């Protein structure tokens, strides 16, 4: 019975995540940027823009300029999260890809650094007056969510193992529409439930910063307004008859 409920939950969460995120991205894509507003100095061509965006996404360049502590805990959290996510590919692939097998041990320990990162971000939110002022309950809940996910995951990795082979069977079963039983384990239930919650929240919350950054005109525009005329369709309409 629990297995069926979780199966339904995951199908639903995946649907929300995929449809919601694609919908948001399509809105961003459709919405015009009528004026050239890169924050300068900015790259003057597309190649430069790609590099700027990569530095922003991979290294958090702007955050580094802003505040070293926030950058350090923020980057630690995100880099760890990325490793952890990649490690989890082993539950969705058979046979497991070689590089996924390779990062497995790093991914496991990244769970710990991810937890440290979340703790650091949360500490800032609680102890720094300015950040406390701008925090909403949802900002705290989001961190709590990540903390529970990380804790429950680490608990299963290091303290009380769950039957990972069965978990994998369940996940593969979801993918190939061949229902398998999920091990009866409370910590696992918590872990999976919170992950599903995260997937559902993603397209309707501040987690949209992940796709959003790629659409930020102040970062993704090339600085070439004198060389190339840039005009949006709604602005172009004003020129008819002039």
């Amino acid at each position, binding site marked *: 019975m629990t297995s069926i409920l979780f199966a339904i939950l995951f199908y639903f969460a995946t649907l929300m995540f995929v449809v919601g995120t694609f919908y948001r991205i399509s809105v961003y894509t459709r919405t015009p940027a009528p004026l050239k507003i890169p924050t300068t100095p900015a790259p003057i061509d597309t190649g430069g823009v790609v590099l700027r965006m990569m530095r922003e996404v991979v290294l958090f360049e702007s955050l580094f300029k802003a505040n070293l502590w926030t950058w350090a805990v923020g980057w630690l959290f995100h880099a760890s999260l990325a490793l952890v996510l990649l490690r989890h590919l082993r539950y969705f692939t058979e046979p497991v890809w070689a590089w996924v097998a390779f990062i497995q041990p790093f991914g496991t320990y990244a769970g710990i650094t991810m937890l440290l990162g979340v703790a650091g971000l949360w500490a800032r939110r609680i102890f720094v007056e300015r950040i406390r002022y701008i925090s909403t309950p949802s900002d705290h809940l989001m961190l709590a969510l990540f903390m529970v996910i990380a804790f429950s995951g680490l608990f299963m990795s290091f303290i009380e193992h769950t039957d990972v082979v069965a978990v994998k069977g369940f996940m593969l079963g979801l993918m190939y529409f061949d229902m398998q039983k999920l091990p009866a384990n409370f910590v696992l239930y918590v872990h999976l439930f919170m992950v599903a919650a995260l997937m559902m929240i993603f397209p309707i919350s501040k987690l949209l910063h992940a796709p959003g950054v790629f659409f930020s005109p102040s970062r993704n525009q090339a600085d070439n307004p004198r060389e190339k005329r*840039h005009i949006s369709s709604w602005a172009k309409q004003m020129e008819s008859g002039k």
Partner: protein
Amino acid sequence: MSEITAPAYRVIPIIPALKPGAMEGPGPYVANEKIQEGLGFPGKLVDDWHDKAISKMGELLGKYRSLKVFMDACVHCGACSDKCHYFIGTQDPKNMPVARQDLMRSIYRRYFTLPGKLFPKLVGARDLTREVLDEWHNYYHQCSECRRCSVFCPYGIDTAEVTMAGREILDSVGYGQKYDNEIIGKVHKIGNNLGLPGPALIDTMEGLEEDVKEDTGIDVRFPVDVKGAEVLLITPSADFFAEPHIDSLIGYGKVFHATGTSWTISSMSSEAANFGMFIGNYEQLRKVALRIREAALELGVKRIVVGECGHAWRVAYSFWNTLTGVGDGADQDDQFAMMLQRQLDHRYKQPTHICEFTWDMIERGALSFDKEANDKHIITFHDSCNVARGSRMGGYPGGQFDIPRNIIKAVANHFVEMDPSTTHEKTFCCGGGGGLLTDDLMDLRVKGALPRMEVLKQVADEQGVNFLAVICAICKTQFSKVMPYYGFDRKMVGGVHQLVSNAIKLGAK
């Protein structure tokens, strides 16, 4: 208003503690019916302002990707929270960029997102009330749209875009700001921010010819409405009469004279400033800019050169090609733009900043200087925010920092830099930009100047700096007004071309 005093200098770089409510108040004067209606906005607050404001917000979210993405992407990380000069000077938490954005984001979440509709408290969403509208008027006029926060934001969120949207919504419900909207009205009617009519302008320019003649014995011309001139100079109208602005105008005239460049200003289009940007209204921005297109076509000029003005250079450099076709690279079937682009000389960048023009001439060896003429000055350079973060000069990113400095070094012997965490892309606004250069905001202006004043104090004390060079009309006015509050002589501030004017050799070549 109670007496205005400058805040105490901080022991750098301590981040100030919060003083909630420090800058609460009615905000700047509200535009009257005549001013509002002159721009096609409702004369006073409309009865259905709530619905109008929400529908305007929806419209803007559909027209500006920046606004849409910026409303969604903020994670409240706080990277921007200590970066705004108005926050540093006032300590009001609502002047933290993120909090200023949240004044609007809270409304966005309530009316345009699912969680905000279902659980407003949880995600910091709130209803649009009259109090919120008043708060917008107050705090969206405590942002100078300087973009400093956007340098540090990991998603490039630019509070200027949010402020512009906020002002645009306020205008659309009949709640405009007097200073900005009155000025835009003057440009539409007369052609410049000051309301200086053509005859007065011609008179002023003739006066300048006499002054320079008296001063140097040389006939430097200051031409108005000359058809067939090579260069059309578009400069902030403050250059025509305000101190120290006018000294830079004399400098431009001397550079044109010494290089044998035929030039003119236009009495119909005698304004580089474009307050349409400040109020975030595309139609107004465009309408103001179109006068320049019209003048260029009418006078048949080959080049358009822009005088020392920060936001005007942002508008010229970044927006003119979009708005008016002044630029290059329009599609062949784009008749509107091609009409002008065929006329312009594309061996030069269109438009050209006066600093680009002068530096180009210096590099070609067309100008020579008596650097000792500036020896009484120990000079530092203030990067104006809109030039630094919203535009460029020259052919590579960052040219906007090098070219003005290169000119100063070419015309003077003593140049020093201020604290690097306050120059180049990290420069602080003067405290009077973004449509806030009005006496009813003097308290804010004095406080907002704090971060610049404290590093100026440093170089004044340690290196004897006695001249603050700038390339922005608003910076010039703002600094001359607020510097006395900080114990500086108002005459310390001047334009880069004022220094050029001091040192240029006119008879030589």
